[in-house]
């Protein structure tokens, strides 16, 4: 047994009792686990109950960590609710399923055994989802069976007597629609009732163990499931269940999106439209932000007395941070698009379309979803690789995820493309040269990811090909509120990074450019401390077509990719003190020729300039070996790629 077993047999009464409920101490609060099959609506319910904003989307495997929130019950009491990764069974083949099992068995440090379970199932897929009831009932905890989207079951001509179903399993039941919030109060009431009742089984010390069908192999696996299904069938028959009819909308849309010709075509058209939108739709917004930043800079500069502080503020901070902020609209357009894909249910279809390629590479189709989410950011993508059951496939997925073009690369790409690629129409107004270049950079990243995975699966991570079973969720109209909240959250993250990392870098760079003083004045930039340091590394990057200023940008972008934009903004801001507005593109053209610009783009496609990614890799692989290998491999590829690009152009 596990070394944390004592936590599992801790008397429940020592932590919770109906009378001595102390809301201020979390350890005394009721602990309720939210569990269910993937994509059944747990996190949506969790957010409704706790007021938190954990990520939800319409595909299986969004939640890969446990999240704890507080549910406010009546009479000022609170309970703790844990949202868990979805599971279909308890053999815990994948890392996210292990998290769920550990929490239910009370092995998670600092948590103890839950006092109650809220089991959320999707009523439109009832029979399969109920396979989970029997192992949950074995825990012997007060359980509420939540029939989510039961309204949809009825809308699709299904039928169910909830009360009889509950009696069959010996649990309470309730209907919800977690998205609209209907029925959520009943869940709150259930939690409160568990707190009120001094139910005898909670006063008895106990240890929990979920039946792990592969660990206890007395029965063949298939018999275990056959037995479970017989129980479910008996229960649903008693409850006069009739299944939901097929969702006509979903089947009609699938006949388009998964069509042999139309499917891939739709995918390409969608992608092209987004890349074009990033350049055309975002422009007015970006111009607006640029105007505000430049205007506020001038306004401030005119009102502050001439001093080192004014120089730092205007030439260093305003120019540095401002040049990155301009890219917020483009990032938001990307996230809006990704959000629509995720919430509509299209993402899972994209995974099916790409699965053949994944098969040739040697990866599970499941690995495609983390890779798609890496278009937003590699960090959550690496975490969501936990849903990939095979350890070798999981490592390969994590290793190649940073090649997918994350949103932090977008400001760098957009800046260089706008500066060096003249806009011409390729396919009328639908696709211009700039959008096509951007699309090309995204493709280059994807090709690098796929080829690296192919290489890994034939060398370090050799393993057999596994089958692919993937649930396709029904299509849903994305909720405007969810999309809006996501954009708000994303803006917040972007602004926080600009306010912390980029601000700090801007100040440090500004200071380095002020010394050594020449006659009490700042030195010419080439002779400054920054210039001298930069010139030390120049020989290493000169073959790529970069001078020392770009080199400083590269070094600072090791913290995070978009920092290079801020760095260049600060350097040019100090260099051109008489220029109050940000003329980053014009200044860049002095330092880079087309070959150098393309080389810089290629460098950013391949290099792993992100400390957060390195840190999360270390955590997920439990060591430095993989992140070190990943960093060196990507750096080598970036250097060689940039060198070749600079030579060719």
């Amino acid at each position, binding site marked *: 047994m596990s070394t944390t077993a004592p936590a599992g047999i801790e008397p429940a009464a020592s932590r919770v009792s109906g009378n001595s409920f102390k809301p201020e101490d979390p350890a005394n609060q009721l602990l309720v686990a939210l569990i269910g099959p993937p994509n059944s609506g747990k996190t949506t319910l969790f957010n409704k109950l706790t007021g938190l904003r954990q990520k939800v989307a319409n595909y299986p495997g969004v939640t890969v960590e446990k999240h704890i929130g507080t549910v406010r019950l009546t009479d000022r009491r609170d309970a703790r609710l844990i949202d868990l990764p979805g599971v279909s069974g308890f053999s815990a083949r994948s890392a996210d399923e292990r998290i769920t099992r550990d929490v239910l068995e009370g092995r998670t440090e600092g948590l103890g055994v839950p006092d109650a379970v809220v089991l959320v199932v999707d009523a439109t897929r009832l029979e399969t989802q109920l396979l989970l009831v029997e192992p949950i009932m074995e825990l012997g905890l007060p359980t509420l069976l939540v029939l989510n989207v039961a309204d949809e079951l009825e809308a699709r001509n299904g039928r169910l007597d909830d009360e009889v179903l509950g009696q069959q399993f010996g649990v309470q039941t309730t209907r919800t629609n977690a998205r609209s919030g209907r029925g959520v109060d009943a869940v709150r009431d259930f939690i409160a009732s568990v707190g009120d009742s001094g139910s005898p089984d909670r006063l008895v010390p106990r240890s929990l163990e979920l039946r792990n*069908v592969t660990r206890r192999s007395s029965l063949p696996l298939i018999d275990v499931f*056959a037995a479970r*299904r017989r129980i479910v069938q008996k229960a649903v028959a008693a409850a006069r269940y009739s*299944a939901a009819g097929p969702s006509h909308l979903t089947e009609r849309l699938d006949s388009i999106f998964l069509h*042999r*010709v139309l499917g891939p075509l739709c995918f390409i058209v969608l992608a092209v439209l987004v890349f074009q939108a990033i350049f055309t739709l975002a422009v007015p917004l970006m111009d607006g932000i640029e105007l505000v930043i430049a205007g506020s800079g001038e306004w401030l500069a005119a009102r502050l007395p001439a001093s080192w502080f004014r120089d730092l503020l205007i030439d260093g901070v305003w120019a540095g941070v401002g040049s990155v902020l301009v890219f917020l609209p483009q990032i938001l357009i990307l996230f809006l698009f990704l959000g629509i894909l995720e919430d509509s249910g299209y993402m899972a279809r994209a995974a099916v379309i790409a*699965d*053949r390629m994944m098969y040739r590479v040697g990866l599970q189709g499941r690995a495609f979803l983390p890779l798609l989410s890496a278009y937003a950011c590699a960090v959550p993508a690496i975490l969501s690789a936990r849903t990939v059951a095979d350890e070798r496939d999981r490592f390969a997925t994590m290793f190649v995820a940073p090649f997918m073009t994350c949103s932090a690369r977008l400001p760098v790409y957009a800046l260089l493309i706008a500066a060096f690629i003249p806009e011409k129409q390729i396919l009328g107004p639908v696709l211009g040269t700039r959008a096509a270049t951007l699309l090309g950079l995204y493709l280059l990243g994807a090709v690098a990811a796929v080829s690296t995975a192919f290489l890994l699966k034939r060398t370090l991570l050799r393993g057999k090909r596994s089958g*692919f*079973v993937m649930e396709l969720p029904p299509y849903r109209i994305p909720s405007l509120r969810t999309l809006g909240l996501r954009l708000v959250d994303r803006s917040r993250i972007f602004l926080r990074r600009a306010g912390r990392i980029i601000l700090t870098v801007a100040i440090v760079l500004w200071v380095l450019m002020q010394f050594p003083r020449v006659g009490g004045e700042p030195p010419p930039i080439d002779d400054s401390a920054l210039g001298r340091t930069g010139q030390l590394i120049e020989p290493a990057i000169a073959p790529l077509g970069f001078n020392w200023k770009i080199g400083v940008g590269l070094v600072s972008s090791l913290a995070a990719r978009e920092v290079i934009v801020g760095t260049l903004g600060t350097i040019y801001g100090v260099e051109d003190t008489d220029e109050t507005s940000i003329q980053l593109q014009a200044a860049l053209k002095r330092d880079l020729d087309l070959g150098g610009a393309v080389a810089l783009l290629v460098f950013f496609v391949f290099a792993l300039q992100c400390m957060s990614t390195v840190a999360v890799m270390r955590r997920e692989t439990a060591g430095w070996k993989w992140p070190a290998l990943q960093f060196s491999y990507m750096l080598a590829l970036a250097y060689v790629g940039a060198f070749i690009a600079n030579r060719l152009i």
Partner: protein
Amino acid sequence: MEDPRSQTLLNELPEPAPTTELRLTEVPLREVVELVRIDLPSDELEPLLERGVLPGCLLCPLLYSPAGDPIVRVDGSLLALRRELAGCLCVRRGVLPVH
């Protein structure tokens, strides 16, 4: 003679007439069939079993993905199966009228 893997298989139902048994990949689209047997080693069964694909269940192939992998309806949910995997599912026809 006999496939060594069949040791691990389960014939939960009485053996159907051989003429009606075929692979899922051979079933015409939109025909409902009953799963009879899964020709896979037992350690590869679980992802299917957990999603309700076990002998006795009803399957209905709805369409093929661009790469030729079947999308199958099982108890109200849609599952995408690789065609290699679908080829391991032995099914019986004539359970329900085609719809």
